[in-house]
């Protein structure tokens, strides 16, 4: 009871001191020391009371109990990023390089409605016609001839999320891809699916965790003509903690599509197989195993982190006359350096080899920077990222891609180098 009363008094003093003098906590320690000197508390009791009181106040400040801000502001987070890019592209057979400076800006809010629900809304630079890029080019773009033109802002994402417990999450709207992908071979990271995602997760024991991501993606919806195209994806996976430094994540995604085969192509430069009427010749139901092996301080701490990752994709619905080479794709790569680049001098290097058969996956999804986002290609990508300070970094990204078709004017090798300055908030 004696200790409880002392702790209560100290907590009150610390709380009252918030915003008054930062050195007050030190004076609490002096007060406790006096109580020890007078024999009222033992040194251990003083240590326990002092530390627990500070921890309690820290927790209550974090919970917003002592904040003067309105509750709705405390429940809302603002986040975003800006990227300045200089890009140079070369294509065999072309007499001139293509160079451009580009910017990307994204801003979003995430607001907690209650303990289980939140809403997220974000806008970004970009155009409504290209869901795989939020870049806008500085200066004249294409045939435009207006210096310093205004850049358009589009709705990047808008979703509601319901999380009744730690095992279940429901998301509806337009949201960040909920399927786990170790690389952007199949999914450009700018592409935000529209529909519903249900994520299940369960920690099984100290080493094993299980998850299952489910996605219903409304790709095209026209209720008048009933011309709907949809994707349904289910991705069970596991996390396995090998030891304190090594973790393995592996998953198997299965994709089902409706309203694709026999329907009009989604973009003008499709590389998937088409009929003479420009409709998709095949469906794209496919299997996609993925893995990521993460090792901290490998090779006796030579580097802080090593990641080994890979994907495989096989289109199970493309039949004759498509060949096996057209139906599969894969990538494999390594990342080493710091696990994340978030501060000064942190760095990471990545190298990846990838190949995508012509009909291995629907060609509107892969990373738009790798051989212009086409299928029917093989490519090497090398990335180096260096931290310039907290939440800002410099990135060099190099791609060399070639078509799996050896000839033709649209099948020339391409190389692209991008230099990025990233800033996050």
């Amino acid at each position, binding site marked *: 009871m004696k200790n409880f009363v002392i702790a209560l008094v100290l907590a009150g003093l610390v709380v009252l001191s918030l915003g008054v003098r930062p050195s007050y906590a030190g004076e609490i320690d002096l007060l406790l020391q006096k109580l020890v000197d007078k024999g009222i508390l033992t040194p251990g009791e003083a240590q326990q009371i002092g530390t627990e009181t500070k921890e309690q106040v820290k927790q209550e400040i974090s919970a917003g109990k002592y904040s003067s801000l309105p509750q709705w502001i405390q429940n809302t987070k603002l986040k975003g990023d800006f990227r300045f890019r200089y890009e140079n592209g070369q294509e065999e057979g072309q007499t001139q390089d293509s160079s451009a400076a580009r910017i990307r800006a994204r801003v979003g809010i995430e607001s907690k409605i209650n303990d289980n629900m939140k809403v997220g809304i974000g806008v970004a630079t970009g155009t409504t016609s290209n869901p795989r890029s939020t870049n806008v080019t500085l200066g004249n773009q294409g045939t435009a001839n207006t210096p310093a033109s205004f850049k358009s802002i589009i709705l990047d994402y808008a979703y509601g999320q319901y999380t009744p417990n*730690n095992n279940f999450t429901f998301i509806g709207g337009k949201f960040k891809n909920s399927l786990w992908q170790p690389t952007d071979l199949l999914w450009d990271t700018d592409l935000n699916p529209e529909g519903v995602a249900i994520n299940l997760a369960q920690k099984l024991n100290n080493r094993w965790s299980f998850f299952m991501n489910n996605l219903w993606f409304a790709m095209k919806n026209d209720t008048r003509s009933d011309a709907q195209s949809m994707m349904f994806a289910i991705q069970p996976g596991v996390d396995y903690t090998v030891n304190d430094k090594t973790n393995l994540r592996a998953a198997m995604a299965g994709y089902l599509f409706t309203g694709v085969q026999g329907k009009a192509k989604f973009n003008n430069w499709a590389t998937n197989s088409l009929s003479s009427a420009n409709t998709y010749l095949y469906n794209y139901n496919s299997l996609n195993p993925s893995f990521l092996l993460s090792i901290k301080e490998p090779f006796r701490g030579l580097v802080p982190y090593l990641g080994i990752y890979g994907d495989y994709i096989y289109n199970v619905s493309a039949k004759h006359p498509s060949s096996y080479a057209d139906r599969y794709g894969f990538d494999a790569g390594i990342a080493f350096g710091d696990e994340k680049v978030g501060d000064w001098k942190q760095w990471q290097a990545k190298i990846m080899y990838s190949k995508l058969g012509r009909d291995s996956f629907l060609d509107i999804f892969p990373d738009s920077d790798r051989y212009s986002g086409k299928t029917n290609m093989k490519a090497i990508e090398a990335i180096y990222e260096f931290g310039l300070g907290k939440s800002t970094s410099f990135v060099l990204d190099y791609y060399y891609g070639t078509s799996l078709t050896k000839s033709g004017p649209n099948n020339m090798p391409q190389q692209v180098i991008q230099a990025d300055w990233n800033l996050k908030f």
Partner: protein
Amino acid sequence: MKVFKAAGLVVLFLGLALQVYAGGPYGEDREKVILEGSTTVLPIAQAAAETFMMKNPQVDVTVRGGGSGVGIASLIDGTCDIANSSRPIKDTELDKAVTNGRSPKACVIAMDGICVIVHPSNSVNALTMKQIKGIYTGAISNWSQVGGPDKKIVVISRDSSSGTFEAFGTLALNSAKVRPDALMQASNQAIASTVSRTEGAIGYVGLGYLTPEVKAIDVDGVKASKETVLNNKYALGRPLFMYTNGEPRDEVKEFIDYILSPDGQKMVEEQGFVRLK
């Protein structure tokens, strides 16, 4: 549409299976208390669990390691009842906890003091924190640079997965990296043993692992002892925590009360840590 129905049924089935696995109506009758986290606190938690279960056979106490961060993450996720931690909870962890509707409540169960030790023949009796950092990061490599004999310093450290390594790195090195040629040892005993056999060696161990075969040196002019650790005068002392979600209740409260009891605190001391009472 048949495909969608089938997939929906698969999802429903797996969801139910997960719920059942998570411990639904088919769970055992014994009350369960799950502890997870710091490897430093692990021996205290294991010894306490053993004795507590003997006294309370209706309670099943499970103790897991993984590190302080893992334990706190599990507490936030709701997969453990007590997070063992050899450091205070971080602000980012608190924010995540609050976002998830959790309110971590700290309970200090013991104190840990890290003693810097050398071979008994070494004439150096005291070092400053700056000198210790210099030795462990490679700026100082000979004992003569800190007033000792002209002898190469053999740096011995705990392996990076240990809580003691983490605490030493934070308290003594300001999170700077240990020199790459340091000899990494898997336990406090291994460090004490290696230092006792190597004349130029320096190492660090928990206060309870001091032996007559090694010499503990003063840090910033303060000798490591239970008293100097408890009154925060010794720079390499730290509290050890058990975090619960809100005020501990039922079996969780009984378990923590046991650790704070005279019997529990005696056991804390037997494990090489500084008792609070």
